């Protein structure tokens, strides 16, 4: 059965912005309260059903990340309705929670806590992460001694360990060297296939084609187009 996972109705989001206030003042326009605000999302009405894999396209600043953050519960909409059925997991910045002075082992529980993974799952998850990150003895060293690729391996391994009801991803990149990139691709695919519903914002047509079936094009905080991913990628590339 196809149940609705996410529904928004005329959703708007405005940021308070001092920058725009100054800009308007300089150009001599009247400073009404509305103009002091920067409207990041404008009249978003959309329905996403269970099991849909939605790719989000658009130029920088089009509102892709802001939209995902609204769905993640970070920003409350300024007006309009937002309805979410199910648990949401966001994968925006994998490094959040990382302590560079702590060892690889010590960082796993920190990363878990940062993503809200219950401690009861630690034994299994640590085993999984250690095996996947494949860093050997380096796990006992502070991660400030790691290369950035090695650091990312741990963060990536924890971030992708748990599947979700609704998964939000912002530009998931391939991690590490060629060999590890293959492994990370397999792991990402597993995560995506185990997760119910996916929203992925990306500039990579290849990623979007691989992982998504439906596409949304954002422009200036509005949804410009909505349709099958191939058509959307084509349309987006033509307007570039």
């Amino acid at each position: 059965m196809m149940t609705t996972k996410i529904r928004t109705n005329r959703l708007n989001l405005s940021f308070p912005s001092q920058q725009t206030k100054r800009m308007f003042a300089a150009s001599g326009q009247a400073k009404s309260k509305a103009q002091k605000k920067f409207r990041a999302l404008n009249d978003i009405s959309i329905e996403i059903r269970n099991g849909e894999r939605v790719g989000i396209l658009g130029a920088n600043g089009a509102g892709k990340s802001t939209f995902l953050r609204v769905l993640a519960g970070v920003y409350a909409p300024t007006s309009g309705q937002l309805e979410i059925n199910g648990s949401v997991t966001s994968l925006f910045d994998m490094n959040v929670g990382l302590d560079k002075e702590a060892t690889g082992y010590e960082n796993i529980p920190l990363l878990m806590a940062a993503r809200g993974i219950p401690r009861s799952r630690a034994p299994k998850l640590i085993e999984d992460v250690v095996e996947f990150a494949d860093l050997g003895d380096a796990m006992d060293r502070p991660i400030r001694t790691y290369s950035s690729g090695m650091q990312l391996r741990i963060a990536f391994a924890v971030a992708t360990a748990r599947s979700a009801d609704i998964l939000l991803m912002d530009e998931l990149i391939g991690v590490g060297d060629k060999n590890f990139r293959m492994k990370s691709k397999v792991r990402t695919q597993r995560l995506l296939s185990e997760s119910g519903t996916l929203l992925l914002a990306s500039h990579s047509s290849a990623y979007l084609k691989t992982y998504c079936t439906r596409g949304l094009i954002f422009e200036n905080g509005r949804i410009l187009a909505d349709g099958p991913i191939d058509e959307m990628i084509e349309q987006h590339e033509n307007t570039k």
Partner: protein
Amino acid sequence: MQIAVKDVFEGFKKYEFWTIFGANEIKKKYRRSKLGQFWITLSVAFFVLVVGSLYKNLFGIEDNFYMTYLAIGYVLWQFISGVLNKSGTIFSKNGKFMLQRSWPATTFVLWLIYSEILILAHNLLILIPIFFFWGTWPSIVGVLFSILGFLITFMTALAVGMILAITTLRYRDIQPILKSLVRIAFFATPIIWMERDLGAVGDLILAVNPFGYFLHIVRDPLLGFAINPFDWLIACGIFVVCVLGALLLLARTKHRLAYWL
């Protein structure tokens, strides 16, 4: 209001989060030192011993009792000033967490309070030798009253921490003001000096200084002083006002916190 109360409950429920990061806050600071977190204990012990030996004579306080008085007061002040000084940066420092998913705001205040309580626990060790050498051991009833006093202090700190965290996030200028106020408050609170002959102005300062009441309700029972109901009443009054203020402020601003980051 309901939003705020829910936030507080949800915040406490995320104890796995704030305990691990609260503890890591301390580990982080002392990770590469040999003595580790016992530097916290040592530096406070050093202060108490040096300042105590000096001021004992300066103030003409001959009895050994001054050392226990100073030690308890200073250890508690470390907790109060730690919370006040650091609460201004709670949200700005942990903004990256708040931009990932929806967190109860209370969780981040608890993170700070928890790490300050761990520091307090380290500092409490100093009291053992101090009581042994210079003082008389407090009675069980005294300890119980002191713990009750600390619980009120702790909950007030949580509320004040929340108020400062939110207001400083919105108005960043509060942080430097706060730091200098805390420094002044240390000298205006009976920690190194004792309330004897302060004169009219001194008495007035003491009466309006909220910190004095909290020191009284925690320190006095440990020193074997008689319980002064007036101190407890004022401390509880401050506590209630702060909690209500914090809840009202949180209810009004909760949805906007992420925008101010």
